[in-house]
């Protein structure tokens, strides 16, 4: 069996507003558009990924929040209705997705072997979280490739960002190992925003873009700093500054996704591609791709 590989790693945020603005048939509410900068960014990401052969999408979602270990969807198929508990007016989505249980189990087993608390989720009544669905939709609206879905362990809030990073660096390492041993080509998706201070009011027309902007200048500065590190191949600095970034920007990196992503990519020192940046109800969101296929010698 040929060695598997990670062909791309992506920061792929999940605000349901993006699905709402797309008006896909799966989503019941309809809109007049909005958040185009980000949606065009996702278009560019999809275009880029369409040129890279890959078998599976491996996704960590901050909206499947687990306090007791890290969990993996462990059933081959999920379908149903997802209603966002925070923005039910925007997101009522009928989903249908396949899970690569074999790869999920492989990552699970390796993580367990390295001392992480892990569990396979095998209850058929389980409802997939809207973060997974949103990122899954924006990256691959046809849902025609299987997913590995990993929960977000809330170790940042139990302990500290430093503990979270230790755990997610290890989870990233074993994720990479499992992918390589699987013989599959994988795209890695960290489904999180950057700065994460929301507006607490919603305009009458949610997609009224005259109301949309970053929550504060400080949040903007942090987002630009992190994006600059991404674009200049300085992933290690992101990890180094993760505690300050997470605290001061109230960043969704608290869920571990960004650290895990950078770890699966072996902390890349090559530039990432910024496909788009924009705000959603005040939070900062970047769509970023690390083109591993072009930068890692053993990736074909």
């Amino acid at each position, binding site marked *: 069996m040929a060695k598997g590989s990670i062909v791309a790693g992506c920061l792929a945020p999940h605000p349901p507003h993006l699905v709402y603005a797309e008006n896909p048939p799966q989503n019941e509410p309809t809109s007049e558009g909005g958040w185009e900068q980000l949606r065009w960014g996702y278009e560019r990401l999809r275009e880029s990924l369409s040129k890279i052969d890959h078998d599976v999408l491996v996704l960590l979602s901050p909206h499947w929040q687990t306090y*007791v270990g890290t969990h993996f969807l462990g059933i081959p198929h999920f379908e149903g209705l997802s209603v966002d508990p925070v923005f039910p007016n925007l997101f009522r989505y009928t989903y249908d997705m396949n899970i690569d249980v074999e790869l999920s189990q492989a990552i699970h087993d390796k993580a367990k072997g390295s001392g992480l608390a892990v*569990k396979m989720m095998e209850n058929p*009544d389980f409802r997939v979280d809207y973060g997974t669905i949103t990122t899954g939709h924006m990256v691959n609206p046809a849902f025609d490739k299987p997913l590995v879905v990993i929960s977000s362990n809330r170790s940042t809030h139990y302990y500290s960002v430093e503990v979270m990073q230790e755990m997610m660096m290890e989870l990233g390492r074993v994720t990479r190992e499992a992918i390589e041993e699987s013989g599959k080509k994988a795209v890695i998706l960290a489904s999180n925003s950057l700065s994460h201070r929301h507006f607490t009011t919603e305009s009458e027309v949610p997609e009224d873009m005259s109301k949309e902007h970053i929550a504060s200048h400080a949040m903007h500065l942090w987002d630009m700093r992190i994006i600059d590190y991404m674009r200049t191949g300085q992933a290690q600095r992101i990890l180094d500054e993760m505690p300050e970034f997470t605290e001061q920007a109230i960043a969704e990196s608290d869920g571990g996704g960004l650290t895990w992503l950078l770890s699966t990519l072996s902390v890349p020192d090559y530039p990432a591609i910024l496909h788009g940046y924009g705000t959603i109800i005040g939070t900062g969101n970047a769509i970023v791709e690390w083109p591993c296929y072009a930068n890692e010698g053993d990736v074909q």
Partner: protein
Amino acid sequence: MNGSLVGSYVVPVHPHPLLVPEQNEGWGRLRAAFDEARDAIKDSGADLLIIYSTTWPSIIGHQIQADPNPQWTLVDQDFHDLGSMDYSFNIDAEFAEAWNEANHNRGLQSRTVAYHGFPIDVGSVVALKLLNPDNAIPAVIVSSNVYANRSETTVLAKACLDVIKKTGRKAVAVTAMSMSNRMFTEFIDPSDDRIHSLKDDEWNRKVLEFLEEGRLEDVAQLSRTIHQQIRVQKVVTFKPMWWLSAMNGNRNNLTGRVLAYEALHGAGGAVVQLDPTSTGMGDKEYDEDDVEYYRGERNVLDAEEDSAESTESLTPSSGPALWEPPESKGAVNSNAAPKPVGMYPHARQVGDLLYLSGVGPRQPGTNAIPGGPIRDDDGNPIEYDIKAQTRAVVENIARILEEAGSSMDKIVDVTSFLVDMDRDFAGYNEVWAETLGHYGPTRTTLAIRALPTPIAVEMKVIAKI
């Protein structure tokens, strides 16, 4: 109608007592406590269950469930291996809509949700399935806003009480919450369950001791400290105690009972009953502001525009225009008092006497009415708090006197006007006794048909300089 809160309960959020009570003796005792609470609620004659759930976080203000019959199968995100929870609930959508409106009347951001498949949270599902298994009592569920502070949470409770009183309901308030919420971060055998740490256990027992003594307001006052000591930070705070305390009038003399306290995967789970019946113990002074309206930072979308809108929402749009008080001879005007509704000064000095124009409860700057207006913009009567209005009147009087170089102890005579003597005299009289009554002015109280703005009380004062 004269509705009231007939009971309050604290219940845990994790699904173990519902799904697998037999796997651990403590989980079984929690289940038994749920059953005892269920029977007590039934015996109380309650006709409404109100659930405030910490496992339903919201961002855009508070959300209130308004689907009359939500149905789904819930699986816990962590404890999915314990089984599935089918639910079908009887939600009082009419009350939910009225509460939402009452929230808006008190300056809160709020909305109802009524969508098929809306994910009702695990805390609410566990509470309703165990406390109200046959759906005999209609329920409402409200979210826990992640950004809400004490003021917002307190006002949320007061808006709920507005509707309870207005509709004559006999309500039971339930907070679905953990005590300490630090779980074990690894998987454990059910037989090994215990409170995560001795420190968490000690704090839990102290909090429960307070509750058993009926000292709910003390627990609310300690909410921030408790959160810092025994709670995993972010999102889920100890704020339900602010809500529950405000629902009970911020009292320390309730009748409390701890029905059970056990570990749930390391977190502290307790079933506590709080009866509004006074223990007879003396109540304590309330330490923080007793907030009636929420005026917090909710205008991040467009500060200037929304600020104007929020003020308007507290102020009768149909009311008379406001005037700058004239600087006539002997006039005394204060920037710290509300603007008059006609061309007259706040007071006028003649010799060593000061004659105040009629003083109402409107607030300077915002024009908001503490205790709420007596009617909405369409002229429909709404619930208001006469004691809060009366206190605000007294405060405005004090400001004008201070501007004139006088003081409360120099008040000679007061004429009070009430628009609803039958309803309001007792409350007005109580505040009088606490404030102006101490200074001994003569007083005349009149019932009148209306005042120019939607207020219930106004006072005309003569004082010495």
